[in-house]
C-alpha cells in the first residue's frame, strides 16, 4: 500500500503493508532508527513517538490507523521542553547502555509539555511504561526535575 505520512514535519511516501506497525515504517522504510524496538507488545516504551503531539507506542500502531496524523520521532522532537530534557540528560549523564533512552526522552518531554512542575508521583506514573534494563530510573526522575526547574527560569 503506497501512502503519504508526515514525519518530523516532512511528507514522506512509503509503500508498506496495511498492518505494518508504525515503528517498522519509521525504521525500515524511512531509516529513522532512533526509535527502538524493545518488546513489540507495548510493554517497554522503547518505541515511543508523538502522534499529533501525544506519546504513543509505535510498535502496536498499524500504519493504516495513522490517518493524517503527524508523527514526531526522537530525530525531530524540538521545543523548549525537548531542549531542557536534552540538557538535563547530558548534565546527569542519564543513559547507561542507552537503548531505551529515546523512548524515555519522548515520554519525559510529553510529561513536561503538560505538567510544568511534576511531582515524583507525576513522573513515576508518566514514565512507568518506559522500562530501563540498566535501572537508570533515579537519574531519569532527577533529570526531569532538573528540566522542569530550567523551564521555570
Amino acid at each position, binding site marked *: 500500500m503506497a501512502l503519504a505520512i508526515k514525519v518530523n514535519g516532512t511528507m514522506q511516501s512509503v509503500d508498506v503493508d496495511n*498492518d505494518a506497525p508504525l515503528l517498522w515504517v519509521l525504521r525500515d522504510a524511512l531509516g529513522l532508527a532512533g526509535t527502538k524496538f524493545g518488546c513489540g507488545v507495548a510493554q517497554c516504551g522503547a518505541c515511543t513517538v508523538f502522534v499529533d503531539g501525544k506519546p504513543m507506542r509505535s*510498535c*502496536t500502531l*498499524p500504519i493504516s*490507523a495513522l490517518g493524517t496524523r503527524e508523527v514526531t520521532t526522537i530525530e525531530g522532537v524540538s521545543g523548549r521542553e525537548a531542549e531542557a530534557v536534552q540538557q538535563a540528560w547530558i548534565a546527569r549523564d542519564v543513559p547507561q547502555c542507552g537503548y531505551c533512552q529515546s523512548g524515555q526522552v519522548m515520554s519525559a518531554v510529553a510529561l513536561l509539555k503538560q505538567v510544568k512542575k511534576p511531582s515524583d508521583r507525576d513522573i513515576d506514573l508518566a514514565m512507568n511504561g518506559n522500562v530501563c534494563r540498566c535501572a537508570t530510573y533515579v537519574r531519569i526522575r532527577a533529570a526531569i526535575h532538573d528540566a522542569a526547574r530550567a523551564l521555570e527560569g
Partner: protein
Amino acid sequence: MMRAQALLVAGAVAVTALVAAAVAQTTRQPTAKDLRPVPSFQNIADQQARSIALFEEAGKVLQHPRCVNCHPATERPLQSDAMRPHQPLVVRGADGHGVPGMTCNTCHHVANFDAARVPGHPQWHLAPASMAWEGRTLGEICAQIKDPNRNGGKDMAALLHHMAEDTLVGWGWSPGPGREPAPGTQAAFGALLRAWADTGAHCPPS
C-alpha cells in the same frame, strides 16, 4: 476393488460426521457463555422476582472480566481473563483516560492489534471510581448503575442505551484472541436489561 471399498467407507464416515454435526447444531444446550433469552423468564409469575432474575442473568456480563477489568475497585485497571493488575502500572486519572504522559491511548489504539494482543477502541478508558464493580455483589452493582449520582447522570433510557449500544461496551464481545468474550451478545444483554427495566428494575437483595 479394495480401493473402491475404502472410498465408500471414508465417504460413509464423512456423511455420518456431517449428520452428527448438524444434529449437534440443532440440539446444542446453552452454556455458561450464553445468555438466556428474555422469553425464558416468562414462567416467573411474580414480577419483582422476574425482574431480579433478569438482572442476575445480565450479571453474567456485568461481572465478567471483560467488564470488571475496566470497572476496578482501585485506580488501577485489571487485565486478562485472570483479572491481574494491569501491566505496566497505569491509573484512572482525572477523566478516566490516564494521566499526563501516560494515557490509555498511549498503548491502546483505535482497534485491537492482534499481532501483539493489545486491545483497542477509540474511546478506551476506565469507568469512574463511582462505578467500580470489582468485588461488589450483583445487588450492589444494581444499585450503583441505577443511581444517577454514581452512573454519570444517566437516567434509565441513557443507561439502557449505554449497555445495549455503546461501542466500547460492545468491545466486550469482540475482544480479540486470548481474551474470552463476554457471554451472549450485546443485543441479548441489552434485551435482558430492557426487560429488567420494564419489570420495575428491581435489584437482587445482595
